[in-house]
């Protein structure tokens, strides 16, 4: 069965802290994605990766960085958390084929105080 896991379901951090969100998939997918979801805005792509050590900016990469050292793991890093980064963060993965179905993790709800 397809499995995408995220390191935390809920996270509370303070402004200025460095935050790591981790995502692991067990399906040998080439592609991995990080989205944030805010009410009324839907999902917005932050970064994606199509291979180990490869990354591409999505629509809203400012304030975020990512790391993909292993195929199964894709990390999202908030270098200095700010209150406007309070959001639901969703990780997804897919095969590299064109239009591959994305499989999502359960999400991490991050609150930055």
């Amino acid at each position: 069965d397809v499995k995408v896991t995220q390191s935390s379901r809920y996270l509370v951090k303070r402004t200025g802290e460095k935050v790591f969100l981790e995502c692991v998939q067990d399906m040998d997918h080439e592609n991995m994605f990080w989205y944030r979801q805010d009410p009324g805005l839907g999902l917005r792509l932050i970064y994606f990766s199509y291979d180990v050590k490869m990354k591409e900016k999505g629509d809203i990469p400012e304030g975020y960085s990512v790391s993909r050292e292993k195929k199964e793991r894709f990390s999202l890093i908030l270098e200095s958390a700010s209150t406007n980064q309070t959001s639901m963060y969703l990780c997804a993965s897919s095969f590299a084929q064109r239009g591959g179905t994305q499989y999502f993790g359960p999400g991490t709800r991050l609150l930055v105080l």
Partner: protein
Amino acid sequence: SQQGEEDPQALSIQEGENATMNCSYKTSINNLQWYRQNSGRGLVHLILIRSNEREKHSGRLRVTLDTSKKSSSLLITASRAADTASYFCATGRYYGQNFVFGPGTRLSVLP
């Protein structure tokens, strides 16, 4: 600007009724996918329709695609309370992958 836009933003129906949601997009696509999200959870893939297909069925789901109008619709027949969720369409952009999601339609099915 977003590629996919669902309509309506919210829909409330009685159990047993049919629910129809629409999605419009702006540029050419390889395929269009529909996803469901239960409250506070991740998204689950429902169905994919390719650009050369006009209609597709999966159980109680029926999806249509009109590439000339750049629109798609998702029909859920004989709705159940368990269908209460948000529904998103997603269209491909980068390298043919499905990156762009609309804001979603919030469906409430009342018992």
